[in-house]
C-alpha cells in the first residue's frame, strides 16, 4: 500500500471514459492524452494448452476486427457501456495506463476516475472498479457519465437551474437533468453508435441481400449517416458479400436509405429524451425549455441529430464543443475538484 503511494508520486491522475466504442484518457493538467478504440486482439498460442496473450490493443486491434485468422480474436470487452469481459478489460486498461505513462523504471499507480453509465448495476460498477484497480490504479473513483458530460460541456451544474444533457455514446445513451451538482433525473438506454451500425447492417441485408461488416457499417454511418432529412442526398459505394450468390458485390447507398435505417434506434433515443422531460419536475423542465438540451458524445456527431431532437421536442438543442471528449474532460475536471475541495464533494462520486 505504501509502495503504491510512492509509485503514485510518479503517476498522473487520470480520468478514463471507458466507453463501449472508444476509451479516452484525460491526464490532469495535460488534457486528453489517449483516444483509442476499446478493442483488444487476443492471440491463442499454438499447441494444446497454449496460453492466451494480448496481440494488440486499441487502433491496431480495431484494424483486425473481422479480419483475424483462427488463432487471433479481436474482441470488444465492453458492451452496452459495461464490462462484458472482465479480464480483457483489465488488460486493456493496463495497456492504456502504461501508454500514457512512459515511465520505464517505476510502474505507474495513478488515481483514476472512471465514468460509468448511470443505468449500470452495482455489480457492473464493482467490476469496473476492480478492473481499474487490477490495472494498477491506486485509487478508483466512479462518476456517472451524464454528470461528467455536463461538467465537460461546461454546463453550469452548480446553479439552482435545470440543465439537461444527452450523451450518446457507443453502447448507451444517457439523458440526465442536473441541478445543484446533483442528478435530478437520469436514464440510460442501451442505444448508441453500435446500434446505429447494427441497424445499417440489417437494412443492407434486408434490402440488398448483402452482408456488410461492422467496420463498413461504421464508415457508412460516419460519411452519409444523418438523423434528419436534409436538402442534399449523399452517396457512398460499399462492398459486401451477396447472400444469394455468396460472392462480394459492390453497390451504392444513399443518405436517405441510411436515414430510414436509423429510424428505429433514433426513435429509442427520442423516446428516452421525451420520457426524461416527462419525469422532470416542472420548474426544472421550464429551465430546460428556456435554455435547451446539450448533446455530447460521439453520437452527437451524427448529422442533424440536433435538428431531429429539436423537431421532436420543440426545444433548442445544442451540440457541445468537441462532444467526443466531453465525458473524459468532465471527469478530469471532477478530479481537480476532488483535490481543490478535499473530501467534501459537491457531486455524486463513488
Amino acid at each position, binding site marked *: 500500500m505504501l509502495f503504491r503511494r510512492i509509485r503514485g508520486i*510518479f503517476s498522473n491522475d487520470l480520468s478514463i471514459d471507458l466507453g463501449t466504442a472508444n476509451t479516452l484518457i484525460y491526464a490532469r493538467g*495535460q*488534457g486528453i*492524452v489517449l483516444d483509442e478504440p476499446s478493442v483488444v486482439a487476443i492471440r491463442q498460442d499454438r499447441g494444446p494448452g497454449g496460453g492466451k496473450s494480448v496481440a494488440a490493443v486499441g487502433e491496431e486491434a480495431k484494424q483486425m476486427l473481422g479480419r483475424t485468422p483462427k488463432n487471433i480474436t479481436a474482441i470488444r470487452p465492453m458492451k452496452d457501456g459495461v464490462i462484458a469481459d472482465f479480464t480483457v478489460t483489465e488488460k486493456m486498461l493496463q495497456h492504456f495506463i502504461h501508454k500514457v*505513462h*512512459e515511465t520505464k*523504471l517505476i510502474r505507474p499507480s495513478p488515481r483514476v476516475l472512471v465514468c460509468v453509465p448511470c443505468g449500470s448495476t452495482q455489480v457492473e460498477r464493482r467490476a469496473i472498479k476492480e478492473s481499474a484497480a487490477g490495472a494498477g490504479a491506486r485509487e478508483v473513483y466512479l462518476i456517472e457519465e451524464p454528470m461528467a458530460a455536463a461538467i465537460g460541456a461546461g454546463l453550469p451544474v452548480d446553479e439552482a437551474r435545470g440543465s439537461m444533457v444527452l450523451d450518446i455514446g457507443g453502447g448507451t445513451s444517457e439523458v440526465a437533468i442536473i441541478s445543484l451538482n446533483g442528478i435530478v433525473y437520469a436514464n440510460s438506454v442501451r442505444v448508441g453508435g453500435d446500434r446505429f451500425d447494427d441497424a445499417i447492417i440489417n437494412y443492407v441485408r434486408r434490402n440488398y441481400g448483402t452482408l456488410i461488416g461492422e467496420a463498413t457499417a461504421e464508415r457508412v454511418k460516419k460519411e452519409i449517416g444523418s438523423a434528419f432529412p436534409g436538402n442534399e442526398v449523399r452517396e457512398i459505394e460499399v462492398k459486401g458479400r451477396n447472400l444469394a450468390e455468396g460472392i462480394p458485390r459492390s453497390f451504392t447507398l444513399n443518405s436517405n436509405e441510411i436515414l430510414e435505417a436509423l429510424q428505429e434506434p433514433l426513435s429509442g433515443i427520442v423516446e428516452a429524451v421525451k420520457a426524461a422531460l416527462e419525469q422532470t419536475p416542472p420548474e426544472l423542465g421550464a429551465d430546460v425549455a428556456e*435554455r435547451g438540451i446539450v448533446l455530447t458524445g460521439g453520437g452527437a456527431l451524427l448529422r442533424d441529430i440536433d435538428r431531429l431532437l429539436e423537431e421532436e421536442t*420543440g426545444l433548442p438543442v445544442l451540440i457541445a464543443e468537441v462532444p467526443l471528449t466531453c465525458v473524459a474532460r468532465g471527469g478530469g475536471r471532477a478530479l481537480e475538484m476532488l483535490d481543490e475541495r478535499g473530501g467534501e464533494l459537491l457531486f455524486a462520486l463513488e
Partner: protein
Amino acid sequence: MNPEETEEALEGRATGPGERLKRIREAQGLDLSRVAALLHLGEDKLEALEADQYDRLPGSVFTQGYLRNYARLLGVPTEPLLAAYHELHGPREPLPELHIAQVRHEVGSGHLLVRLITWGIVIGLIALVVIWWRGYLQWPSVTESWDDGSATVAETVDALPGEPGSTMLPGEITTDGVPEMGAGGEGILRLPPQEEALPEDAAREETPTAAGGEKTGVTGTAEMGEAALPAPAAEPESEPKTEPEAMPEPAATTGRINLTFGQVSWVKIQDAGGSFKLQGEMKAGTRRVLGGTPPYQVVLGNANSVSISVDGKPFDLTPHIRGNVARFTLDPRSLSENRNRSEGNPF
C-alpha cells in the same frame, strides 16, 4: 441577399456576431419571430443574441450553441461568428487537444532530480557499509589470530626485557621465542623469505656473536640488519660494533621495530609482502618485534598505551592517533633517512 453582402456582413464592419447575423437575416428577408420559432427560442433571447447582450443569455455554452444553430439556419459558416464571439466575450477556453504520446510527467523517473537522489542514496548506503566495516575491523570480537606459514615474528614475553639473551632477532622464532641455535655456537638462522639470499658466510660470522651473548641486544640487531643488506659482509667487522648508532647506513636499513603494549590493545599489522601479519588482541605488558618486509600497515587500538621504538629510538605515535586508534604506515628505512637528513648527516 447576394454573396458579397453575406461576406461583408460576416467579415464585418458589424462588430458582434449577433449583429452580423441580424444583418444577414434582414438581407434574407426573415422575420425575427419566424426565426425564433425555427430555433425554438424565445424572441427576447433572440433579440439579446442579435444585440450581442450576452448577459441576458444563460451562459457561454448556450450562447455558442444558439449562434451555431442560428448560423446554420441562415446558411452561413459558423466559425467566423464563433471567433467574433470569443473576441467579444473573452478568449475561448483552450480545449484540450489530442497530444497523444507527448505526456509530460510531473516527476518522471528519468528526471534529473530523481536520478541524483537515487545515486545519493546508493552512495550513502555504500559509505555506511564501508564505515561499518572499518569499525568492525577495529574492534572485533576478542580473538587473536596468527598468520602462520612463512610469516615470522619475534616474540618474547616481557619476563626479561633487558636481558641480552632474550633479545629477539628478526629471524624466524619458534613459539617459545628463543632463537634456535646450535649448542656449539652454530646458530641456525632461518631468515624471512626476503633475507634468504643472505650470504652464507655472513650468517656464520654472526652466529658466534649471538651465541657468545657478550654483545648487547642492540648490537646484535644491528648486525642482523646489516646482514640483510647487500653491503659487504665484512664491513660490520671492520667497524666498531659497540656503537652501531654511529653508523648511519646500517642503522637506516636495520629498522628493528619494537612494540610494547602498556594495556590491552588490539593490533593489526601487515607488511608489504603480505607474508607477515600480526593481528589480534595483545595483553598488557606484551612486547613484539616486527618481522617481514617494511613498510608496515599498522592499525593500533588503544594506541595511547602502545609505545613503538625503531632501532631503540621511540617512535612518536601521537600524530597518527585519531580517537585512540592509530592508523599509519611505518617504514623504518624512510624514517631513518629522515632522521639522518634532519641531523644534517652527510650520508
